[in-house]
């Protein structure tokens, strides 16, 4: 895939004179940390999608908001592209640098400004790690609900930019549902407050628009999140199935029974074996698939719901249903799930993580389709995912050192996403478009829809300086890429690796 910024397809970028820019920044911002030598820049060449690397022009590491504001004003005046970066755990190349642009690292803004137990909110700087918020709130019996598996490392600013989810978002929502207020700086260096300390704000809902905008509309400088009381109890059921399709159907049955679990996750045989070898969670390694179903709330309700879910699972054909005996076993069951990606990383030199979402009813069919595609392409696929939300994470196993395997993995990934779109789903549920899925956006949206996205961008960043080349493809790119749009069932991808 042509992942590097391509001016012919992605639009011309302003030419920036590195030495002159460095001079300007040093004289305007003498105490700003700026990295400029090749060896210092190298560590920032990629985010969590490490297959794609670009060395940035400069890296800046501000510590005060006045520095960020001044920097943006300079970049705006001199037309320098700016790519924001939080913790760099993104999986779609959203923080992939530009050779022609500044990488603005927000990680040093890592102070928790306020934990307000009576108001049930936390006000934090954008570089604060997701888990740090819940840890700071814990003494008050409160926590921040969205819990991406990367929560020990990823930043709240990155979570806002990606609208991150987690294993508990079926019941507790995504980042967008758990924000009260976000402060941003525009590319012109102006502060905007989106949302408010109340539950709504006058005017158009820019908080909703900015959440998930991948650093293309503004730089997040402060975030106020809602805190929730910790549930009294949480129990987890582990159900084994002799086919992935049966497990997929059981997911819809649970929801159909009127129960909203706190988490409902599925792992197929390949991923549960890998996780078992790594974590020794106590998974049934002979099962074709398992479901982990967590129920939380007040003791009496949770007990009732456990019985209900157990009955549904058995009726759906589960060969075994186990209730975690105690808190230690519950934590072990989840540890296996949360470490499934690294576990799969141990059984394959490389893997490629997909992020499509589909309607729940399509789960059995899509799982079956993925199995067939996996055989067709001769690459193993491990499925471990947020089944309750219909958010699939097929992990495609490959070896980048074998000629052609990366390309085959990308082609297989593209087919899987097309399958998701074909059943009414989306190419990305929580990892974002970034650079990785820029071409698939042409399959998800038509030219008029993309034009409207560009219009939105124009309202906030008419010069297109914030994170150019990410999230929304140009029409030129889609015209060239149009071949993908047609004929499901054919194999458009092999033609498309190089334009």
């Amino acid at each position: 895939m042509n992942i590097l910024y391509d001016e012919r397809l992605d639009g011309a970028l302003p030419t920036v004179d590195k030495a002159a820019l460095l001079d300007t920044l040093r004289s305007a911002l003498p105490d700003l940390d700026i990295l400029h030598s090749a060896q210092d820049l190298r560590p920032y060449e990629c985010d969590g999608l490490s297959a794609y690397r670009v060395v940035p022009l400069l890296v800046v590491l501000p510590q005060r908001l006045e520095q960020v504001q001044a920097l943006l004003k300079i970049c705006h005046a001199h037309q320098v592209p700016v790519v924001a970066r939080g913790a760099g755990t993104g999986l779609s190349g959203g923080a992939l640098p530009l050779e022609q642009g500044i990488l603005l690292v927000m990680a040093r803004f890592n102070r928790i400004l306020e934990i307000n137990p009576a108001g049930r909110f936390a006000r934090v700087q954008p570089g604060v790690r997701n888990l740090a918020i819940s840890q700071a709130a814990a003494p008050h019996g409160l926590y921040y609900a969205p819990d991406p598996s990367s929560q020990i490392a990823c930043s709240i600013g990155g979570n806002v930019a990606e609208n991150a989810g987690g294993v508990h978002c079926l019941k507790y929502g995504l980042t967008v549902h758990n924000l009260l207020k976000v402060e941003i700086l525009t590319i012109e260096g102006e502060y905007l407050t989106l949302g408010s300390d109340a539950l709504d704000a006058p005017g158009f809902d820019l908080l909703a628009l900015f959440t998930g905008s991948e650093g293309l509309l503004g730089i997040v400088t402060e975030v106020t999140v809602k805190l929730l009381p910790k549930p009294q109890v949480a129990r987890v059921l582990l159900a084994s199935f002799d086919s992935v399709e049966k497990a997929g159907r059981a997911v819809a049955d649970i929801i159909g029974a009127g129960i909203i679990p706190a988490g409902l996750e599925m792992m197929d045989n390949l991923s549960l074996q890998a996780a078992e070898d790594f974590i020794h969670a106590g998974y049934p390694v002979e099962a074709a698939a398992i479901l982990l179903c967590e129920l939380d709330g007040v003791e009496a309700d949770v007990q009732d719901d456990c019985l209900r879910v157990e009955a549904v699972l058995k009726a759906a054909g589960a060969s075994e249903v186990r209730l975690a005996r105690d808190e230690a076993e519950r934590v072990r069951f989840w540890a296996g799930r949360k470490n499934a990606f690294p576990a799969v990383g141990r059984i394959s030199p490389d893997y490629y993580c997909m992020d499509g979402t589909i309607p729940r009813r399509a789960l059995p069919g899509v799982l079956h389709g993925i199995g067939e595609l996996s055989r067709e392409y001769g690459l193993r696929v491990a499925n471990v995912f947020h089944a309750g939300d219909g958010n699939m994470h097929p992990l495609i196993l490959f070896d980048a050192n074998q000629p052609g395997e990366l390309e085959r993995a990308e082609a297989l990934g593209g087919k899987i996403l097309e399958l998701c779109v074909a059943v009414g789903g989306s190419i990305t549920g929580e990892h974002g478009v970034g650079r990785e899925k820029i071409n698939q956006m042409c399959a998800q949206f038509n030219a008029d829809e993309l034009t409207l996205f560009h219009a939105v961008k124009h309202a906030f960043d008419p010069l297109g300086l914030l994170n150019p080349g990410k999230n929304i493809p140009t029409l030129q790119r889609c015209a060239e890429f149009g071949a993908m749009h047609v004929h499901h069932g054919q194999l458009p991808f092999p033609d498309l690796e190089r334009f």
Partner: protein
Amino acid sequence: MDQDHDDSSALLEQVRQALVDCTPLRIQGSDSKAMLGRPVNGRPLDTRSHRGIVSYDPTELVITARAGTPLREIEAALHSAGQMLPFEPPHLGDGATLGGMVAAGLAGPRRPWAGSVRDHVLGTRVITGHGKLLRFGGEVMKNVAGYDLSRLLAGSFGCLGVLTEVSLKVLPRPRSCQSLCLTMGLRQALDELAAWGQQALPITAACHDGEALHLRLEGGEGSVASAAERLGGTLLDNRYWHDLREQRLAFFAGDEPLWRLSLPHNSPSLSLPGRQLLDWGGAQRWLKSAASPAVIREAVAHLGGHATLHACHSASFHPLAEPLLRYQRNLKQQLDPSGIFNPGRLYADL
């Protein structure tokens, strides 16, 4: 009228004609909310011919319907499958439509616990200011492809486009529901609410009328019964919440202007002339008061909130400050370049 009718091409034609004639449109469902917001002069665009539920599969927790579908039709379909719109939208009139409900973006008593209208919007079809019928989002729970235009349209009062179809996330109705009335003053109520909010109690509505705190508990039978026992008080008819939502409580009677104050939930009581009713566990306060808008807005803004006058008035909505107003204007200009959608409904130049 037909129960089920796809009239999107006629709506699209009217928008295209308006673009050709440079004639503003006044988008309306049943016009039940005409009393809210600034008056709009324009050729009426009535969405009610475009109606019907397009798809509803309870196990998906999603309903998709055309914008002109009466809200009551949607609620009836959900009810028969044991589900609901979690944000309890007010109807305020018999014919309220789905499109009007989403465009107005207001939610009922369950809002602080269940989320807002926009929180439940998964996808939309919309006629844009460029005269195109486009689709954003979809029927899946999670979708971060492109900007979230569907959620932006919720609460935009029809100023950014004509909604023709909306997909909403829905939830199962709670198995058990019980309402309570506890006699206590406002200050004590706010203290209790702050303390309960930090515990896992199944409260899903809280309203204080000056004399008593009204609570609703919802969840499984066990949790509702044990919370009711713990909180005490007297039993309250569950219909109370319906009357609150539809503004039928005695409080709403009288000629003084009605204000909706949106505040941090633990804000202290406001000393403003007139009568107040605390809703949303404190995050929404209704005010019947003849005080000047400037006085009310200053008091509310001081606490980090904003105030909406529920009347057809040139300054219904809380004024926006620069530079926010400028960016909101930029957005309107980009999405509705000819300014044909409800011009001036929210603000003079939006």
